[in-house]
């Protein structure tokens, strides 16, 4: 089974004075290394600050694009991991080991397999094709 760990932090997260970012980077590095050594890590990325991003709001047509994080958001997504385990409990054990502090949280979601949807639906069929194109767009060695 595949699980996604989504790191969420409050918008108003207070960063104490003299906060040691190197320590955080080291702790995250060690955590990632432990996931790799256990053979469970499939992918993971950290996200750049929300101010660099933008939000597309679909309340109106056409949708409205605004800079920065969603104005009313209380939490921001800062990164994710994709891991593969044999049980939900194993995913939970790994999630609990993530070196995050008070105020932050990890949302853990199982990644669906396309096989779980109605196979006769034409978009489910198309999704297989999209995945194929997305997965094979990269040149391979050899």
């Amino acid at each position, binding site marked *: 089974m595949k699980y996604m760990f989504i790191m969420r932090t409050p918008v108003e997260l207070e960063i104490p004075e003299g906060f040691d970012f190197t320590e955080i980077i080291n702790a995250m590095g060690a955590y990632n290394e432990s996931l*790799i*050594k*256990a*053979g*469970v890590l*499939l992918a993971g990325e950290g996200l750049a600050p929300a101010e660099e991003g933008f939000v597309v709001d679909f309340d109106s047509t056409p949708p409205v694009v605004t800079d920065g994080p969603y104005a009313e958001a209380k939490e921001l997504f800062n990164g994710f991991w994709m891991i*593969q*385990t*044999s*049980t939900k*409990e*194993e995913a*939970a*054990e*790994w999630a609990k080991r993530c070196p995050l502090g008070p105020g932050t949280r990890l949302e853990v979601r199982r990644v669906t*397999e*396309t*096989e779980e949807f109605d196979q006769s639906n034409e978009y489910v*069929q198309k999704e*297989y*094709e999209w*995945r*194929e194109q*997305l*997965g*094979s767009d*990269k040149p*391979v*060695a*050899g």
Partner: protein
Amino acid sequence: MATPDGADVTAQDAVASARRRVEAVWRIESARIVATLTRVVGDFGLAEDLAQEALLLALAQWPRDGVPPNPGAWLTTVAKRKAIDMHRRNNRLDDRHADMAHHLAEQQRLDTGSDELPWDPETIDDDVLRLVFTACHPILPRESQIALTLRVVGGLTSEEIARAFMIPVATVQQRVVRAKKTIAAAEIPFEVPPRKEFDSRLGSVLSVAYLIFNEGYAATSGTAWTRPDLANEAIRLTRILSALVPEEPEVLALLALLELQASRFAARVDANGEPILLADQDRSRWDHHQIRRGCEALARADAAGRGRGAYALQAGIAECHAVAASTAETDWAQIVALYDALGSLAPSPVVDLNRAVAVAMADGPAAGLQLVDELIAKRALDGYSLLPSVRGELLSRLERHDEARIEFLAAAELTHNERERAVLVEKAGVRPSA
């Protein structure tokens, strides 16, 4: 729940949930726990016994008392205490155990939830690698290597292993017990093999992972612990190994091969569980993220610049299939070249037969048929159902249907697989005679 019955159900749920947590912790920690204990008590078999005793205690206590904050440390500490108690009983508190007792006394707070690691971060990777080499030691029969590796490195219970291989639990336990006795009797050192033995010992480890994968890959059914899970377990073990010895290209090559083969799981059987041949598979159902991981692992193996070994060559063949949009667009000439290399590295009539099929795809059925006939003349594959089956395919592509029918019937006689037999009989029957 308001009713007493309901409360019981809830209590049972809590017990089951705690049990699943113990098993999850065990899967994550068992290798490091057993490796650490082996280093500390100096005896692999004893370490494994102690670790299993600690696991049993956890299974009894955690559902009742709750899971400790640092479960890996708890298990290791309990096992070390049991080691000290045992030696005290035997009045053999030697220096090694005196050290351990002293260390434990200092680490009492582990019980109450310190996040201190129960093992030495400087040596733990080497210890786990030693553990892998011990479990896959060539002195052990293959099935014991597999059982021991899944149990101590993979952290599977005997019940899970038994279910995966469809054998009795007692058989698994017997294999583990015998293996530990053999290792003790032969005084196998707890070490990473010296350079001159390293390659062949690593080969033994890779074979174990490969066989576990094949056991999962060949099967098409299963319930609680389904067979794809066994294949995934083999991939996990190979990933662990590739992190422990990142400089070994054959480990990455095996990882590539397994990822590429596993990418086809969803497309390998139809809705009725009938196997679908590679040529007929819906390629859009292959796992293209997994294919990418496989291709990347093979590229990393190639980057070592040491040439391709047997796993890398097979991974290369799997890659040719994985990146092709259809059978027609497959680079069959490249596949023939890879089979040539594989055949000269590890000569085998089965490889020759596969090469003949690839030649037939690259240069036409007549060229393939000539190679198949050479193989028949050598008589190395007598009684192998795929030989007449392939010959039948090639003959039917050459429109020599009467001869093809004879081959399909011969293949149907030889196969032990009922489904395959039905397909072959159908092929023999529906072909129009010339």
